[in-house]
C-alpha cells in the first residue's frame, strides 16, 4: 500500500469541515460556534497544504499562512464581541441574541 494520496487528505479535510459545520449549526453558545468555525478553517488549511504538496506549488503554503494569521485576528475580534455582548445581555446564547430581528 502506497503512501496516502491527495484524495485521502481531501476526504479527511472534508470530514473535519463537515464536523465543524455540524458544530456551527448545533451549538447554542457563541463561543461554541466560534470553535466550529475554527475547525472549518482548519480543514481548509489541510486542503491548501495538500494541494501545495501534490501540485508542487508554493502558493498554497503562503495562502495557508495568510489564512492562519487572519484566523487569529478573527478569533481576537470575535471573542471581544462575545465578551462585549455578554456584558450587556448577560448571556452568550446565540438564540437569545435577537436584538436585530425585524
Amino acid at each position, binding site marked *: *500500500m*502506497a*503512501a*496516502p*494520496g491527495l*484524495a*485521502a*487528505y*481531501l*476526504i*479527511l479535510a472534508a*470530514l*473535519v*469541515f*463537515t*464536523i*465543524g*459545520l*455540524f*458544530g456551527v*449549526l*448545533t*451549538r*447554542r453558545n457563541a*463561543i*461554541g460556534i466560534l*470553535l*466550529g468555525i*475554527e*475547525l472549518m478553517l*482548519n480543514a481548509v*488549511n*489541510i486542503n491548501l*497544504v*495538500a494541494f501545495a*504538496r*501534490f*501540485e*508542487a506549488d*508554493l502558493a498554497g*503554503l*503562503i495562502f*495557508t*499562512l495568510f489564512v*492562519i*494569521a487572519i484566523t*487569529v*485576528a478573527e478569533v*481576537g*475580534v470575535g*471573542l*471581544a*464581541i*462575545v*465578551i*462585549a455582548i*455578554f456584558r450587556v445581555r*448577560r448571556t*452568550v446564547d446565540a*438564540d437569545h441574541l435577537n436584538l436585530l430581528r425585524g
Partner: protein
Amino acid sequence: MTLETVVFGLVALALLGGSLGVVLTPNLFHAVLYLAGALVATAVVFLLLDAAFLFAVQLLLYAGGVVTVLVFAIMLTERLIGEHITQTNRHIVNGAVMSAAVFVGIAGFIVRSSLPAAESAPADRTVELARALVGPFAPTLELLGVLLVAALLGAVYFARTED
C-alpha cells in the same frame, strides 16, 4: 504498508476524534481542550505534507495563541456569570443531515475529479517560502500586518469597559 500510511491513519483518527469532541462535548472548556488536540493533529498532517514551517506556525499560533485566548474568554464569561457554562445542542438531527449532505457533495466531487499524483517536491521548502513572502507576496504581507493592527485595536475597542 509504509510508515507514512500508518502515521496518516493514526493522525486522521486523532483529528476526527478531536473534532467530534469539539462539537459534541457539553462542557465548553473540554471542547477547547479537544480543539487543541485537533489543532496539534492538523500540525502533524502538515508535517506529513512536507510543510515543516507551517507545522511550527500551526503549533505556535493556533495551539498556543488561539487556544489560550479561547480559554481566557470562557473563564471570563464563566466568572462573570458565576456558574459553569453547560451547553446543550439544538437541531441535532437537522444539523447532522445538513452536514452529511455537504460531505456527500464534497466527497462525490473528489471521487469524480482526476487528481494529480504526487510530484517530487523538495523536502524542505522553508527557504523558498521565505523568499516568496518578501518577494512577490510582500504587499500582501504588509496588508496582513495592517489587518492585525486593526484587529488588535478593534478587540480593545469592543472589550474595554466604560469609564
